[in-house]
C-alpha cells in the first residue's frame, strides 16, 4: 500500500463530502425501493393487505404470459428503430450545428429546447401534429402533394415508427454530448489531413468518427437504456393500442402495478427488465472493444 499524502487524504475527504447528498439520495430513494422491490418479486401484494410470500410464482406466471412476450417484442422493435435513428439524427444535427454560421447560438438553443419540455407535453404536441384527420402533417401532405397521409399513431403498422419519429424532439441531450465532443477534437489532425488533400467526407469518416467513437458508444448505451424504458408516448397518445402494438414493456409494468394492483408481479417485471438492460449494456461494451478508440490508448 502506498501511504497517502496529506493532500490526497484531504482530497478524498472532500470527495466524500461533495458526493454525500447524491449518495444518500441514492440509498434512500433508489437503493431502498430497489431492495424492497427485489423482495416484493417473491410476494403477492395488492397494496392494502400485507405481502404474501409466493416463491417463484410471479416468474413462473410471467414466463407463460402472452402479454409479457408481446410487450417485450414491441419494445425491442421500438429500440431497434429508435436507437440508430436517435444516434444518426443527433450526430448529423450536432455536426451541422458545429459549423460556423450566423445565428449558431440561436440554432443550437432551438434544437435543444424541446428536450427541456416534459415528455407528456411533447407527446400531446406530436399527437396533434400527426392526427390523421386534423393534424398539420397530413393536411400539408394533402394540400401540397395531394396524398392522404398515413394513420400514424392510429394504425397498427405505423404506430411504432411514428413514436420513433418523436425522438426528433427528444434527442437534444444526445446531440449536446456529440456537440461538446466535436468541439474538443484536435484541430491539428484536420489541418494535416487537409494539407494532404483529404476531402471533407473522408475526414469525417477517418478522423471525426474514430475520435468520436467513445462518445458514440456512450450515447448508444444511454439510448438503449432509454428506449427499453419507453413509456410516456404510449401512455399519453395510444394507451398501448391499436391491437397491443404500442403496449411497451414499462407500460405493461405500470398497468400491472397501478391498474391491477399486482405489485409483486410488477416488481418481477421490473427486475427482468433490469437484467435485460444490464446484459445488453455489457454485451454492447464488450462487442464495441474493437471499434472504439480511446485517445489515451492510441498515445501509449
Amino acid at each position, binding site marked *: 500500500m502506498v501511504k497517502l499524502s496529506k493532500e490526497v487524504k484531504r482530497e478524498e475527504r472532500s470527495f466524500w463530502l461533495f458526493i454525500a447528498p447524491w449518495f444518500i439520495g441514492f440509498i434512500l430513494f433508489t437503493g431502498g425501493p430497489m431492495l424492497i422491490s427485489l423482495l416484493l418479486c417473491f410476494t403477492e401484494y395488492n397494496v*392494502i393487505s400485507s405481502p404474501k410470500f409466493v416463491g417463484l410464482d410471479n416468474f413462473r406466471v410471467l414466463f407463460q404470459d402472452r402479454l409479457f412476450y408481446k410487450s417485450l417484442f414491441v419494445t425491442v422493435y421500438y429500440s431497434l428503430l429508435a436507437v440508430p435513428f436517435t444516434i444518426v439524427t443527433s450526430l448529423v444535427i450536432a455536426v451541422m450545428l458545429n459549423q460556423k454560421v450566423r445565428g449558431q447560438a440561436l440554432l443550437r438553443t432551438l434544437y435543444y429546447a424541446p428536450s427541456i419540455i416534459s415528455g407528456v407535453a411533447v407527446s400531446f404536441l406530436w399527437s396533434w401534429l400527426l392526427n390523421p384527420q386534423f393534424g398539420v402533417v397530413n393536411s400539408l401532405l394533402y394540400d401540397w402533394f395531394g396524398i392522404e397521409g398515413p394513420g400514424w399513431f392510429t394504425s397498427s403498422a405505423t404506430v411504432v415508427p411514428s413514436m420513433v419519429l418523436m425522438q426528433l424532439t427528444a434527442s437534444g441531450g444526445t446531440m449536446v454530448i456529440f456537440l461538446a465532443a466535436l468541439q474538443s477534437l484536435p484541430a491539428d489532425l484536420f489541418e494535416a489531413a487537409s494539407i494532404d488533400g483529404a476531402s471533407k467526407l473522408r475526414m469525417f469518416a477517418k478522423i471525426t468518427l474514430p475520435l468520436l467513437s467513445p462518445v458514440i458508444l456512450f450515447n448508444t448505451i444511454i439510448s438503449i437504456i432509454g428506449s427499453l424504458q419507453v413509456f410516456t408516448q404510449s401512455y399519453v397518445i395510444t394507451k398501448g393500442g391499436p391491437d397491443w402494438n404500442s403496449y411497451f414493456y414499462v407500460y405493461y409494468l405500470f398497468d400491472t402495478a397501478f391498474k391491477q394492483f399486482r405489485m409483486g408481479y410488477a416488481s418481477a417485471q421490473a427486475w427482468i427488465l433490469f437484467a435485460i438492460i444490464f446484459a445488453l449494456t455489457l454485451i454492447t461494451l464488450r462487442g464495441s472493444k474493437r471499434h472504439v478508440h480511446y485517445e489515451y490508448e492510441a498515445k501509449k
Partner: protein
Amino acid sequence: MKKSFIKKNTMVGLILILATSALLSACSDKPGSETSGNSNNNSVESNQKVEIVWAMAADPDKKAWQDAMVSTFEETHPNITVRLENIPYDQFDQKLTTMISSGKTPDVWNPNQADSGFATYMKMGALKDLTPYIEKGAQELDTMDPNLLDIYKIDGRNYGIPLVSNATYLYYNKDLFDQANLPYPTTDWDDTSWNYDKMLEVAGKLTHDVGNVRKQVFGFSSALSPNAMAWSFGGDFFKPEAYETALMGEPDLFNPNNIEALQFNVDLINKYKVAPDQQTVDASAQLGDPFLTGKVAMYITGGWGLGSYKSAEFNWGVAAVPYHEGRKVTLYVDPWSISESSKHPDEAWEFVRHLADPKEGGGAYRYMNEVGRTPADSSLFELWYEQMGKQIGMEPADFKQVHEGSIKYGREAENHLIVKFNTIFETMKQTMSTVWNGKKSIDNGLKELDQNLRSLKLD
C-alpha cells in the same frame, strides 16, 4: 494505460447507475400497510377538531360545487374540517393506492371515479360497511330508490350511497337531421319500429363523403364497449354469476346475440360505411369526443353527454336506443364510499349525509342543479326533467320519456360490478380493434379474445 482503464471503468459505473433507473418504475411503497380497525370512539362529542379528507377526480365543472359543499358542511359542523383533494382522473388509481399504502387514506370518495371501479376496491377491502349507519336512520336517504341502494349492497351489506345515476341515450345532431330533412328519432323505448334496421336506413341517409377526411359525415357511431354492444342486442360476454360474484370467471363470448351485435357493428363500418372506423374514432378521440366534432349524426353514450355536449356548436337532442329483443343499456350509478381504514368514520358519514341530501341547498340537490348531472334521488327527477328539457330544447315530458325508458331497460355498468374490469375492458378494446378494421373475422377475433381474457390474472 492506467488512465484509459480508469476512464472506461468510470463509464461502466455511470452506465450501471443509469440502468438502475429502470427500477424506478417499480413500486416504492412500504410493505405491511396499515389496515387498522376503525376506532369507533364517538369523537363528534369531544371538542377536538377533526379533519376528514374528501378525494375527488378533478373536474373544473365541479369545483364551485365542491367548495360550496365544504363550506356549508363546516358551518353546520364546527368540529369538523373537510380537506378536499382533487386528483386528475387518470391518476386516481395510482394516487389512491399510494395514499392507502402509506396510511393516508381519504375518508370519503367515489370508487367509480377511478378506472378500476367499485368492485375492485370492494374486493381489496378498501371500503367500509355502511349498513350500521343506514340502520341508525338517515332521513337523506328516504326518497332514494331502493333499487339504486341495492346496487352497492354486497351480501346484504351496503358499501356505497348513490350520488348520480347516469343512463345511456342515443344523442342526435339536430342540424344534420334537419339538413337531410329527416324526422328526429323517437323518444319511446317501446316503439319497436325504431330498431336497428330502421336506424341503419336513417344512418345511410345522413352519411355522406365518407373517405374524404375533410367533408365526411357519418350517420352513426357509439362509445359502447363490445360487451355493451352485446347487451344492446340481448347478448352478454359474461355469465350472470360474474356480475354477482364480482369475478369475471369463464367468458361466454360465442353467444349468437353477441355475434349478431358485433357483426352489425362491423358491417356499419365496413359494409354499409355509415360509421367511422377505429382509426377515425381514435383520431377524433385524441381531440375529445367524436359526437362533438359535429360529423356524427347519431351517437350512443352515457348520460354525462348531457353536460359535456353543452359546449357543442350545433343543436342536439336525446332519443331511445334502437329496439332489439332483450335489449339492455348501461346505467352508471356512482356512490359515495367511506374508507375501511378511515380514522373518523362517524364524521365521514355525517359528510356523506350532507352530500346525499336532496333538499334544497343539500349536496345532491346542488349537484343536480349546479353541475347538471343525473340525480340519484327520486325526489329530484321532476325538477331535473324541467331543467334538462329547457337546456337542450326538448319538451320535459319527452326528455322524461327518454330517461325513464333508459332506466327501464338499463342495468348497472360492468366496471362497477366486476373486479378489475378496466383490465378486461382494455383487453376487449385492444383485441377487437383488428375485428373493427376487418383484418380479422368476428369468429377469429372472439377466439383470440377468449384466449386473452382467460389468461388474465384478475384475483
